[in-house]
């Protein structure tokens, strides 16, 4: 339906909204707005809906449109978009090159003429006459146009090939780099294990061994990696929203926070009772509309648990041994 241009990405803004179905970029980041020849853009979903059964009138201006005539918007200003379309059409016919002319002067005159035709079409000056001139030119130069078009295609293919080559080279380099990182990681791990073994078997002082090995460790690798934070998980999981997170060296937490318990609290858990799923509770009839309460997220369990906790708070907690008050005399 729409051609993808590698060099010029499709125009997209956070304010985009389809004027037909009112869907917006904010809630549908993948929305694609396409432009028809009458320049009343709409989203891909709408196009599918309206034009999948064949040509149909544009919902805005009633001009008959086909699904295949839509293209991706490249510029914010639709005037620019229109000019681009015209220039593309002109370029299809007027594809002569410098080497097709006897002198530079003639080539420049030719360019001048092309520019004049383009200007007329864009600004709607003598459209009828201009179209005729284009047709005449196309007829007269049919062979040259065809051979030039073929040459252009050939050149494009070459370029594509070169780009593909470059991309695969880059990918290859990246693979090599990753492999290197992995190897370093393995080396580091074996060294670490060696320290542990040394610590276990040797009778030298621990700090001495660690200090000696720390120097070799530092030398062997300058790039720390995320995988060492916990041995249980494999591979770097740190890539999230932020590329290269695994190259950051403050990734590993302090040793003491490894044992950090997020649920620790100064407050004692209230225990000693077992919450039953249901109780005989005359108070529950105070809730006039139990369905409404459930829909709101209220559970009668809250009330029961809270009452039980209130009853058991502090009940089964032994006093601190050194703070037993002496009986009043």
């Amino acid at each position, binding site marked *: 339906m729409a051609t993808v241009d590698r060099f010029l990405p499709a125009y997209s803004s956070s304010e985009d909204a389809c004027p037909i179905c009112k869907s917006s970029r904010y*809630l*549908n*980041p*993948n929305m694609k707005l396409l432009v028809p020849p009458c320049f009343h853009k709409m989203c891909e979903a709408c196009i599918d809906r309206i034009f999948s059964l064949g040509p149909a009138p544009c919902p805005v201006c009633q001009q008959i449109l086909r699904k295949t005539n839509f293209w991706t918007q490249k510029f914010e200003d639709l005037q620019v978009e229109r000019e681009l379309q015209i220039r593309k059409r002109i370029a299809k016919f007027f594809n002569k090159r410098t080497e097709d002319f006897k002198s530079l002067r003639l080539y420049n005159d030719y360019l001048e003429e092309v520019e004049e035709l383009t200007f007329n079409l864009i600004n709607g000056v003598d459209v009828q006459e201009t179209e005729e001139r284009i047709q005449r030119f196309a007829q007269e130069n049919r062979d040259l146009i065809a051979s030039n078009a073929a040459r252009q295609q050939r050149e494009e293919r070459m370029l594509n090939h070169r780009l593909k080559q470059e991309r695969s080279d880059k990918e290859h380099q990246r693979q090599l780099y990753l492999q290197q990182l992995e190897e370093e990681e393995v080396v580091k791990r074996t060294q670490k294990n060696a320290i542990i073994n040394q610590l276990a078997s040797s009778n030298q002082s621990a700090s001495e061994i660690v200090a000696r090995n720390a120097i070799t460790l530092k030398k062997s690798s300058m790039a720390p990696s*995320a995988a060492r*934070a*916990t041995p249980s*998980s494999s591979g*770097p*999981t*740190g890539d*999230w*929203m*932020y590329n290269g*997170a695994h190259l*950051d060296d*403050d*990734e*590993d*937490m*302090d040793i003491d*926070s490894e044992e950090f318990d*997020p*649920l620790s*609290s*100064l*407050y004692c858990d209230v225990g000693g009772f077992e919450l039953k799923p249901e109780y005989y*509770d005359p*108070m*529950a009839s*105070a*809730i006039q*509309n139990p*369905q*409404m*309460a*459930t*829909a*709101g*997220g*209220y*559970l*009668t369990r*809250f*009330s029961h*648990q*809270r009452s039980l*906790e209130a009853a058991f708070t502090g009940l089964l907690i032994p006093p601190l041994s050194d703070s037993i008050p002496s009986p009043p005399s």
Partner: protein
Amino acid sequence: MRVEVGEAMNARTESRYVKDKKIGEGTYAVVYQGTEISTQRMVAIKKIKMGHFKSGLDMSAIREVKALRELAHPNVIELIDVFSHKTNLNLVLEFLDTDLEMVIKDTDLIFKAADIKSWLLMTLRGLHHCHRNWLLHRDLKPNNLLIARDGQLKLADFGLARDYGEMTATMTSQVVTRWYRAPELLFGAKRYGYGIDIWSVGCIFAELMLRTPYLPGDTDMEQLDTIFRALGTPTEDEWPHLTSLPDYVQFKAYPKTPLRTLFTATTADALDLLEKMLVYNPVKRTSALEAIQHPYFQNLPRPTHPARLPKPAMNINEGSVAAKRRLDPG
């Protein structure tokens, strides 16, 4: 005689602190930076305005004192003292530099996955502490999550907090700043549970990843529309008795779109947790305890140590901006 004893105690409390300078003003309170004389500890003194309350004390001041007297936790702001001066009530609170909204809005800061995990974990820890003491915060949003100099995040502004679970009590649904308000509140539920706070945390979690509010609606109706457009319109199947809620209105049936389409760069475990926080049926929504135990917090990367979290660059004297916005009526 009694009265005199009380007054003497009050005078003693008051004499322990000095007000240094005004750092912010809201509709119902003025905040001063102050010092505890004996320890030279910096404190914030929140002076409740009495003028425009016709009978007695302002409700939110009572709620705040009541709630904070119950709670002591590293992730909940500390209420150090309360005293009155003439006819004004003064709350002496822990002094905190900045808030999460300032952090989110500071475009100079780059968040790593581990940073977001750390802030979320601290929020949930504070919230779990409130919930296990049968207290709902009812106004969670980034600018009520204050951040201490050492990086600890603390729940603050308990002006709307109240206890929950009581069988006989109905509560108002006009709570929580709109963008963070759970759908059951928007439908006018008068009995609800911890789910409303979890919904807010879900919105904050999304905001931390997007760096822009996740569900910004201009009116209550538009808020529901925004929620449904983002998460799909709920059905009776996934939210039983939904239609019996007081202010229920039929909405256009939007399809459910996977969160992945908006949160493109997030890990699967993070999205799973977010999804569990934004479940429509409040009974099925995850609790703070379950959220803390979610694999997201066990998986790598580990949460950043609070001291190493990104912080907006500012000197001590600029604390007033944070304090001022903190006072905006919720």
